[in-house]
C-alpha cells in the first residue's frame, strides 16, 4: 500500500516564476492538507482540500493556490515566487477531518 507520494522531490526556481507541486494521497484517503516547512521551523498550515473544495486556509497570500482532483490527488501552485518561499512543502492525507494525518516526504523548493 503506497503512502503519500509527492513530486518533484527537489526543484530550483528563480524569483517571479511559478511552481506546481503534486501530491497523491494514501489509498482510501479523501482529504489533502498542505504545509510549508521553512528551514529550522515547524510546518505551517497552508490549506486543506476535501471534495475538491478548499475547506480551511492558513495565513498565506493568494499567490498560494491549490486544487483537488476527483481521484483525490492535489496540486499546490505558487505564483510570483519570492526568496522566502524556499522551503520544504509537505502534503498530508487523511480520511476526513478526524482521521490521522499521513505525511509525504515533501518537495524541497529553492528560489534563487
Amino acid at each position, binding site marked *: 500500500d503506497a503512502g*503519500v507520494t509527492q513530486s518533484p522531490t527537489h526543484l530550483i526556481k528563480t524569483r517571479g516564476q511559478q511552481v506546481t507541486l503534486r501530491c497523491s494521497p494514501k489509498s482510501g484517503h479523501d482529504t489533502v492538507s498542505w504545509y510549508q516547512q521553512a528551514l*529550522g*521551523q*515547524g510546518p505551517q498550515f497552508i490549506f*486543506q482540500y476535501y471534495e475538491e473544495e478548499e475547506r480551511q486556509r492558513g495565513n498565506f497570500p493568494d499567490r498560494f493556490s491549490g486544487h483537488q482532483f476527483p481521484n483525490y490527488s492535489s496540486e499546490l501552485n505558487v505564483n510570483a515566487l519570492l526568496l522566502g518561499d524556499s522551503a520544504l512543502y509537505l502534503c498530508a492525507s487523511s480520511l476526513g*477531518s*478526524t*482521521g490521522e*494525518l499521513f*505525511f509525504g516526504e515533501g518537495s524541497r523548493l529553492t528560489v534563487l
Partner: protein
Amino acid sequence: AQSVTQPDIHITVSEGASLELRCNYSYGATPYLFWYVQSPGQGLQLLLKYFSGDTLVQGIKGFEAEFKRSQSSFNLRKPSVHWSDAAEYFCAVAPLFGNEKLTFGTGTRLTIIP
C-alpha cells in the same frame, strides 16, 4: 490564536538514558494535541495524540506523553532511548476535534550518543 512552544532546540542524551521533551501550548479551549517525529529526509510520523480522557497517553515506539492542563503542557517521554530515536520532534495543537489547521512548534532536535 493557538500557539505551541518547544523550549529546547537541541537535546543530547546517551543511549539507554531516559528522555523528556517539553511542549507548552496556548489555546482557550480543550486542545487536541499531537507529537510527531521527523527523521532526515522523511515526512512526519505521528507518535501519539490526546483529545480527552486519560491524561497519560501511550504512543508508538515506546513513547508516552502526559497532558497537564494546569501547566498547559504536553511533554513527551521515553524511559530508555535507542540510537534510532535520533530525529526532530514536533509538538502540535489543533483547534477542533480533527486534523484541520495544525499549529506546530519549532521542534526539538534529539541527538543520541553511544
